[in-house]
């Protein structure tokens, strides 16, 4: 389908091996912070940044890291970038930082990042790892966006709330279905979305 290896590195992460809908990884932040599109987008960008950086560093250091201490080294690398992102967020978008809460430092233990470092960046050249990081990160962000879109529209009746482009969708009399904003709603919506992607992928015969 796509012969360019870099393009396929990107598209794989977004579609075929979408972290959320296909691999079902990184569920904790996915469920927790997708109440609003803004939060989903923020978390997604943070993950893209960390994932890309850590992929690049892991890949460039892959020959120098001894096998035995591979995982601890990866974790330190990831933790470093997460700390940096944390500081950046705190400094420039404090509201978003507060909204994401403890889930920003928890990016460290997001299976996607360690998983990509192990499965891909630890074995592949730097440039491919870069694109793989971007691809998986974009896939993750896409998942967050879809989920937060559904939850915000039904659970809050708005689009892009708490941003400059906020839209009140259904007028003032609308009584939003609050369950979408609740933890229970997050689980149920994600479950249904997963089922939906299963059906779509089966129809399109992508496996």
């Amino acid at each position, binding site marked *: 389908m796509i012969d360019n290896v870099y393009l396929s590195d990107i598209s794989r992460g977004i579609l075929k091996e979408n972290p959320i809908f296909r*691999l079902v*990884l990184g569920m904790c932040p996915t469920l927790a912070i997708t109440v609003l599109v803004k939060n989903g987008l923020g978390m997604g960008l943070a993950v893209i940044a960390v994932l890309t950086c850590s992929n690049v560093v892991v890949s460039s250091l892959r020959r120098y890291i001894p096998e035995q*201490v591979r995982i*601890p080294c990866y974790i330190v690398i990831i933790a470093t970038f997460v700390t940096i992102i944390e500081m950046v967020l705190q400094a420039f978008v404090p509201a978003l930082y507060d909204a994401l809460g403890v889930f920003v430092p928890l990016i460290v233990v997001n299976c996607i990042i*360690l*998983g990509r470092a*192990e*499965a891909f960046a630890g074995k592949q050249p730097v440039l491919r790892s870069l694109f793989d990081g971007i691809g998986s990160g974009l896939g993750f962000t896409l998942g967050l966006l879809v989920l937060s879109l559904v939850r915000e529209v039904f659970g809050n009746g708005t689009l892009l709330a708490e941003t400059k482009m906020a839209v009140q969708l259904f007028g003032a009399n609308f009584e939003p279905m609050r369950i979408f904003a609740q933890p229970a709603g997050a689980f149920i919506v994600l479950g249904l979305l997963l089922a939906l992607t299963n059906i779509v992928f089966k129809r399109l015969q992508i496996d």
Partner: protein
Amino acid sequence: MQILFAVIALGGVGAFFGLLLGLAARFFAVPTDSRIEAIREALPGANCGACAYAGCNQYAEAIIEERAPLNGCIPGGAMTAEAIAAIMGEEVDAVEPVVAAVFCRGDQRHARDLFTYHGILDCDYAQQFHGGFKACPDGCLGLGNCVRACPFEAISMGPRGLPLVDQSACTGCGLCAEACPRDIIRLVPQGDQGHLVWCSSQQRGKTVTRSCEVGCTGCRACVRACPQEAISMEGYLAVIDLQKCDDCGLCVEKCRFGSILPRRESAAPAAAESEAASA
């Protein structure tokens, strides 16, 4: 100054645990299968648990003990599965592709039932009652053990109680043939070349005609008719060697019972019926 502290603290923690782990690894070392190591290397090592095992280690051990499928690692995907397969030495030999075929045409219209069975819809269990409800002891019971056995959804139950094989989905794994208690399903080369005797009856001719309109009676008319000598008898059943068959169709003309059909047509009537049934 702070930077120095940071380096020292981090280095200290790192060194402390590194030392501890190094010591621990030396003193508490447990010998393991080298393949487990190799598989663990091949695995992403995220310990995400998506494989339903407690971690990559456990999954690797399960593979070695052949309790787990090779492609169980979801994050690793196909690449990892291939790598594991290489370690386990399980390479798929290049063989001629085969597909499953149902050697019975005795559907609800053509074959007689002795009685009505009511109970668990399972060929094995139905057969426990007076040897099965079909008058033909080798005929398809149509309760779908093969359909349930197929992991690829390549077999479905036709409208008149005969299973239909979807050649494009069939991988020739043979699970359906194993599942059939009457050994009606056999594996044949892929494609629609050649003719076949669509019957598995080992009964004498008289018994066959009493129980089924399309069963092979073993009359040998086809054997005599075949210019390629592709047809031979196995007991009371004619069998066509697809290697020798050149699709001339003379056997079809000679067969009084309609047991022989070209492969490309064998599925057609059933398909047409299912369309008619749904219309």
